[in-house]
């Protein structure tokens, strides 16, 4: 598999993955990584996800609150805002349409 193509594909989907993972409830960074990487094939790492959390927060799609940690400093929990939910909805619609169309196109090619 072409690494560049894979990287580009993943890059485009990171934001959707993060928003979708947070749709299940608030999470702190490492917890969020675990939530995403529980699904085979996603394999997102810290350098990709952590700066994105900062960007999404600045853009108003996420809010942050501090919560206690058993050993370390207070954890920062991220939660979707209304604006974040709207963005997720738009992205999900676009992704589903694209996915369905692409699947049909591939199937059509296989059948012919």
């Amino acid at each position: 598999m072409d690494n560049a193509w894979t990287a580009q594909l993943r890059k485009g989907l990171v934001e959707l993955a993060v928003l979708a993972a947070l749709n299940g409830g608030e999470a702190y960074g490492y917890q969020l990584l675990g939530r995403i990487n529980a699904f085979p094939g996603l394999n997102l790492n810290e350098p990709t996800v952590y700066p994105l959390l900062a960007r999404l927060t600045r853009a108003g799609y996420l809010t942050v609150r501090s919560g206690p940690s058993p050993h370390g400093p207070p954890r920062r929990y991220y939660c979707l805002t209304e604006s974040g939910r709207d963005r997720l909805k738009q992205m999900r619609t676009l992704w589903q349409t694209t996915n369905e169309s692409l699947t049909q196109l591939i199937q059509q090619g296989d059948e012919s």
Partner: protein
Amino acid sequence: MNANTNAPMNMQSEIYDARKALGGYLERTDLLLARSGLSRSERDETLGQISEQFYDLLGVPIEEADRELTENAIAGLAPERAFELNDVMSTGQILRATWYRFCIGGIVPIFLNDHGRKRVVWGELIKVLVWLGIFMSLVFAIINMMMLGSPSWRWIVSGIMFGFMQIGIWLRFNWLYHHTPVEAMPRAEDWSAPRLHKIRYVWILTVGGPAFFVIALFPTTYWLVSAILNRPAWPIDNGLFVIVSVSLGVPLYLLSMWDGWRRRRNTRRFQNWDRSANM
């Protein structure tokens, strides 16, 4: 393996190691993120998340963490090189990355890797320096057009010379730095980012600064001012010489003071943040 409560002396040194290990990892990561053009707030946010992850992986309060636990926790974090991001998300990021690489001495990232060898990205150095030369030439051509109404070959040539002299200075500076014996350089884990910045800054001030001022900036400015005032550039006019020296020296001094202050402030912020992260 947890630290034994019966060995307080040994525990003291192990506590220091755990904090130092996390601090070293965060400093190097911060350097790489800054080189990638992330803003201070994005870097702080990222470093905060990494710190949280470290404590999760550690599984015990840092006061009880020994070297083995600490090393395991560090190994559970992403490799530092992974933070050398290539994704460009905004124009601001490009500008920050360019500014950082130009001013903070990140043009040539020289580190000792895990095998104790220096790693220099020469391709990146050449690319940045060529762009710098071209950019400075263009700047001078534009200034010339704005001040004199039309470009003249003299100013274009001086701009090109100015730009490419910087390339020469930087190449020389980096050549010197590159040829420092490996034995004389600490290993990466002992060489924190602020220390690296400091040493580069001293080099820039002692070698690059005077060379840049004497060889390139001063004659070019003197030439420019003499042309604007319609006075001969040669023989040197004492009054003009003093005016140009002061008008260049004072802003450069203030700039270096400001840069030093900014650097110290960032280091302090980072240290405070690191300390608060360990509370």
